Each structure stands twice: as C-alpha cells, then as structure tokens.
C-alpha cells in the first residue's frame, strides 16, 4: 500500500490550494476533487448522517483494502485519521457539505441540495486515483 500511496496519492500530500477567493462552486469542486472526500460523503449520504472520525477512517481503510487486495494496517488507518482530521474534513466543512467538530472528532452531514447529491453519486463510483 505504501508504494501506491506515495505514487498516486502524491497530489493529495501537497497543501490544498488557498481557498480565500473561491466562490461556492469552486469550494464544492475542490471538496469533491479528492477520492477520500467523495467516498466519505457517499458513505454518509445513504443514511449515516453522523460518523466519528475513527469510523470514517475505518470505512476508507476498508475501501482501500478492497482495491489493493492487501490488508490495510493500523498505520494506514492512522494516516487516514491524520489526513481526514487535518485536510479532508476541514475542506468538506468549508464547502458546507459536512460540519466537523475537531474537538469531538464528530462529522455531521449537512443537507445537500439535489444537484450536489447527484453529482456526488456520479463521481463516487469513479475509482480514479486523483486525490487519495
């Protein structure tokens, strides 16, 4: 897994571009640009409207395991926790898709308008590696 992450996930390791001048559409686009964020939203969209940080990392770790065909380890899970906490969840929060409480480590799905939900469902099935 390490190999793959260092390769395909490279873009994700870089800092998020500054978001100060983005409009709502730009923030949404950015929010949906990373696979991890789309996956988490997809998971929450169904009927899981609230998850803990740990739960989110477990689902993403499992998802990665099905793709790599290897076991996602505790270290992989820890990496996901860090990535979610420091990068993905703040971006989703800023885009108004979830609200994330970094102290409680709790994620709550915001109500999405229909077009956003549809766009998400279209995107989430794409197993690209653009932003793991």
């Amino acid at each position, binding site marked *: 897994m390490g190999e793959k992450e260092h390769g395909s996930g490279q873009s994700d390791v870089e800092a998020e571009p500054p978001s100060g001048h983005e409009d709502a559409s730009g923030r949404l686009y950015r929010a949906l640009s990373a696979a991890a964020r789309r996956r988490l939203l997809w998971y929450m969209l169904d009927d899981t409207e609230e998850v803990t940080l740990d739960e989110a990392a477990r689902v993403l770790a*499992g998802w990665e*395991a099905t793709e790599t*065909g290897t*076991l996602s380890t505790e270290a992989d899970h820890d990496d996901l926790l860090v990535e979610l906490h420091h990068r993905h969840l703040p971006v989703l929060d800023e885009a108004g898709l979830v609200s994330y409480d970094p102290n409680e480590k709790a994620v709550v799905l915001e109500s999405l308008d229909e077009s956003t939900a549809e766009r998400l469902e279209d995107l989430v099935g794409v197993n690209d590696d653009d932003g793991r």
Partner: protein
Amino acid sequence: MTVLEELFASVRRSPYRFVFHADEAGRGADVTERFATHGVAIETEELPPGGPAPFFVIEEDGVFRGALGLTEVEDILEPPIHRVERIEDVSTGYRVLFDVLDDAVFSATSRRELLAVSREIEERAFRIGIGTLRVGFQKLSAFESQEDVYRKLATETNLDVHVYGAADWTPPTIPGVSYHEYPELDRYWLLAYDSETPQAETCALVARQTGDMYDSFWTNDPETTRTVLDELEAD
C-alpha cells in the same frame, strides 16, 4: 450443564470483533459463520450500493487492527492454508489477521486435536504429580482406550483423579481413580487440573460436541479452571 454453557458463553467473548461491510447482506455468510465459530464477535454494517467490494474491519478491544477485502479473506481461509509462505511473500499486515485467527481458540475442533490437548494437560498433571485432575469422558466406555494412561497417572503420582461419564461400561478398579456417573456430560469432553499449590498450576479443556466436531476452548486461567472443577465436583 448450565454452568458449562455459561462458561462457554463467557469465554467466547473474545477481544476480537470483525465488522463486515457489504452492500448485500447475503454475501460473505460462509466466512462470517466461520469466524463466529472462532469465538469472534461479528457485526454487519450495510453499505449503500455502488461502493466498494465487501470488506472486514478487524478490531481488538475496540481498536482498529486491520481491514481486508472479503475476497482476500476467502483466499486465506481456503484450504490448504499456507500461512508461513503467504506471510513471507505477501505482506506483514496479514500477520494481524493470522494472529486473530490463532488467538481465537474456538474452532471446529477434531477429536484428534482434542486428544493432543488432553495429552498435554495429562502430562502437565503427571509432571507436577500432585493436585486434582477431573476428566469428563462423555461416556465411560471412552475411558477404555485411556486405561493405561490413567493407571500410570494415578499410580506413579499423588494425583487425585476423578473420571466422569455416562455409565455405559464398567471401568476397572484403579487405586487413585474414582468414577462418577454423569449422564448430562454426554456432549462434553472435559479436563481440568489444579495443582492446589501456591503457584496454582491450572489448566482446563472444555469441548462441546456439535456433530462430528467440537467447539472448544482451553485455558490456564485459575478461575475458569476452578469453575470447571467445581461443576464436576458438585455432581
């Protein structure tokens, strides 16, 4: 046999929990059943359709230990299990799963495996040479093939040996061995040993027959061992 049933239930609570994530409840039933017989708590989390392939999240005392796809888990469980080769070849991460499987002492155990564990307990009792050994043979006739072993155990040590079982056979008189009819034991293969010394050397095997195989656990825990001993002695 309620005490033994309760013991089974309590020991079965292993520290491991596998959470199966899938968008179809029916998939993976074989594998989840198999884990359940290893005493692992299984939970199913339904995923929305259109997401990942089914996978397991492996927890120990609530802590994430690993996640693995159903397909890969099925491969691992497929006999023959080439554990060492696989671990060396593929990934150190698999060690976690094998640890889980190894530490979960419950399984569909064969008579041969139970005999090996029984022998271990008997030899331990023999080496220490004092204390109490209580053995449930399902039926007393099963004792026939073990007569020599127990004659040696009882005569060459100071062990107090008690044999239990349904009385379908009249066992020979052996000094140091007492027999107890215990027809309720017919599903249970039991051994429990307590050295009754300050160091408390204890061990027990509890196996319950299900068809041709047994659900079983073995333990060195003094408290669990004494529960088995007390249950037998109470009769």
